[in-house]
């Protein structure tokens, strides 16, 4: 059997709506320090570093410049991936699988609070000729998609509201979450309209925070830590950047990414998974993504949710951490938050949120508006 890649250390900060008393360097340093401590290694033991960032989220051109210091990565192989955490995780895994590198570090963070006009930045990602000149707030795209998705699948606003309820309630048990709450369906349905049928509470709110994850090849991992968590399969996919090309119903990017990850992990039936952390930037996205992953058949995610299938005590708990709706939206670092939750669950260290006998976890990501790209990673604690 081929040698797997394992996660041997995680470090993270509190997630908060603002973080004015630390710079991005200082915030990331805290997460890095914790990760090295968790893995019991020092930066000098690391062979390669990957960080995720997008220039316009940071307000800097070439943010890559500002990556190495706080990771202890000066004069080491370091590069950024301007994509979500799972794609960057794949970059780390591939580097390790070349055999040249033994230990890799992955960093992702959000200083979303520093962006004064976030919708202007999102709009700047729209096609500059076809869409952007219309001057719409880019959230319209989530409205269009939610509308078509609900109509085609038969899921309803009641179901999307249940997603909000579940995730914010799960977040009550997550000490790092920024937006925990105990809400009623009525609270969600009556929240302010943003882009019908999308309402204020359907949208995850931004948060600041940093994550650092340390990876090693299996043989090294076993020597270094007691509870390595293995990456069994990983997939990532670009569907299309062109809005006009999409059907707004199926998350094809996630179907493709999942197929790639399932194949590598040898998973024949998605229901083999014990729990999942799935992108829920918008409430309907969780349902759309559950269906894309094959955890529910098309149109059945809402009913399964209603029946408690995805609750923490259900058959496949989804977003036990609270997801982005409960923890806060960290842009491309969302999936790192998901990976950290999966690692905690698989190490049996999730405290109040711990689910029993968890062996296989799945994390699925989406890059947010206006993209159609995402990734899937399958993690396990099986030797």
């Amino acid at each position, binding site marked *: 059997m081929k040698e797997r890649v394992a996660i041997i250390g995680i470090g993270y900060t509190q997630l908060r709506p603002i973080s004015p008393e630390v710079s991005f360097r200082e915030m990331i340093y805290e997460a890095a320090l914790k990760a090295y401590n968790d893995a019991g290694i020092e930066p000098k033991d690391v062979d390669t570093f990957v960080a995720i960032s997008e220039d316009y989220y940071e307000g800097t051109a070439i943010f890559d410049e500002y990556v190495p210091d706080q990771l202890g990565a000066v004069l080491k192989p370091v590069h*950024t991936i301007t994509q979500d955490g799972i794609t960057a995780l794949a970059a780390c895994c591939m580097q390790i699988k070349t055999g040249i590198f033994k230990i890799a570090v992955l960093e992702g963070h959000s200083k979303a609070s520093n962006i004064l006009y976030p919708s202007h930045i999102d709009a700047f990602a729209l096609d500059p000729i076809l869409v952007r000149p219309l001057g719409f707030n880019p959230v319209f795209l989530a409205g269009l998609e939610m509308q078509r998705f609900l109509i085609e699948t038969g899921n309803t606003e009641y179901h999307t509201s249940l997603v909000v309820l579940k995730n914010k309630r799960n977040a009550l048990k997550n000490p790092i979450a920024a937006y925990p709450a105990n809400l009623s369906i009525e609270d969600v349905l009556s929240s302010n309209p943003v882009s019908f049928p999308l309402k204020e509470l359907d949208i995850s709110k931004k948060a600041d925070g940093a994550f650092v994850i340390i990876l090693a090849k299996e043989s090294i991992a076993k020597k270094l830590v007691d509870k390595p968590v293995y990456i069994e399969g990983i997939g990532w996919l*670009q569907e299309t950047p062109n809005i006009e090309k999409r059907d707004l119903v199926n998350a094809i990017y996630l179907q493709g990414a999942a197929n790639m990850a399932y194949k590598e992990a040898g998973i024949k039936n998605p229901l083999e998974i014990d729990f999942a952390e799935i992108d829920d930037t918008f409430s309907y996205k969780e349902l759309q993504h559950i269906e894309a992953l094959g955890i529910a058949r098309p149109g059945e995610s809402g009913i399964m949710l209603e029946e408690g299938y995805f609750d923490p005590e259900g058959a496949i708990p989804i977003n036990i951490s609270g997801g982005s709706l409960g923890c806060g939206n960290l842009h491309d670092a969302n999936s790192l938050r998901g990976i950290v939750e999966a690692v905690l669950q698989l190490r049996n260290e999730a405290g109040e949120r711990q689910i029993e006998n968890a062996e296989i976890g799945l994390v699925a990501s989406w890059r947010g508006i206006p993209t159609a790209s995402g990734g899937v990673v399958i993690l396990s604690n099986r030797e």
Partner: protein
Amino acid sequence: MQKVAILGAGLTKFSRRAKETGKELAFYAAKMALEEAGLEIDDIDAVVCVSAPDAFDGVHMKGEYLSDGCGASKKPFMRSYVGGGSGVFGIINGWYHVASGTFNTCLVVAEEKMSSSMPHPQGIFNAIYDQFLERPLGVNLLWIFSLEMQRYMAVHKIPLELIALVAVKNKKNAIDHPCAQEGIPGNYTVEEILNSEIMCWPVTRLMVSPVTDGAAAVVLASYDFAKKFGKENIWIEGVGWCLDTSYWTNRDLYYPRYVEYAARMAYEMAGIKDPRKEIHVVEPYDPFAYKELHHLEGLLLADKGEAPRLLEKGFWDRDTLNGIPSSPSGGLLGVGNPIAAAGLMKVIEIYWQLKGKAGKRQVKREIRRGLAQAWGDLMQVGTVVILGK
């Protein structure tokens, strides 16, 4: 580790302002690379895109935006980013896609449409500096280069004339490059280079590469896949990259140690003990004239401070028989500088040289192995690729 081959390469014309959108430039380059490789898009397992700051093209998350032009729709797609070093890093990124055994083929596309940024593309470089300590001073890109150049010259006591020779050599080499940007190549004298208007002393206009739109692409394949396409393949023998601290004002800029570290990594992988004997042709990154010399030293192909003296002796000339031809393509100073695409253009030049397909630019000496290098960020990152027959 899987051996990785280059099966095909593509380039667009370089120009100050292209009519094409960034996506279209990417498509032209990618399609050309596929055609040379004799492959269809369905043969490609994964796509890598490299491009410098989003602020040039003027699209946030520009990797996403460019992806369909790169042939990435419904494929695993990754954009890696190390500033100006991205062009050569694209190959490294693609290399680990294949070398890891994850994919059989990978299409690497580099694109830059700098002309979108107004009033002048240089303006966006303001934002590469530290927002707390440096941007408030009204910085521009040329500051950092002229500061580094000054330090390099001061430490080694290098006369400006020797540095101007780089521009003379590269602009002349570029006359033979079919993609070169209009008005950039030419036969210049050292005096003409030195007497062009001062931008940021000691940097004069003709010692700076221009602002350019363009794209480049390369098809990579695993050993098993490539061997079906004949024996005369060009292989990636070594790769290396390294990032130095962001506190650039704390470093002695006279020497690019990050390039040295990256080069040592690549030499080790390629099993190279004596690079001066084992590297036969080199494409060092030359956005500014002194940079080529600076990088040749970092690559350990010349002693510190010696690259300019070797230049004077013709050691780096294209026609040299006992030296190492440097920037036979004409480099960024001659062909143009669509940042990431320029880096990949350098790799492609080495590939064409090794294949014997460089036409009028073909070097005279016998070559079996070549090296391309790029640099980026705040005088900070080195990326190195070694190709061999």
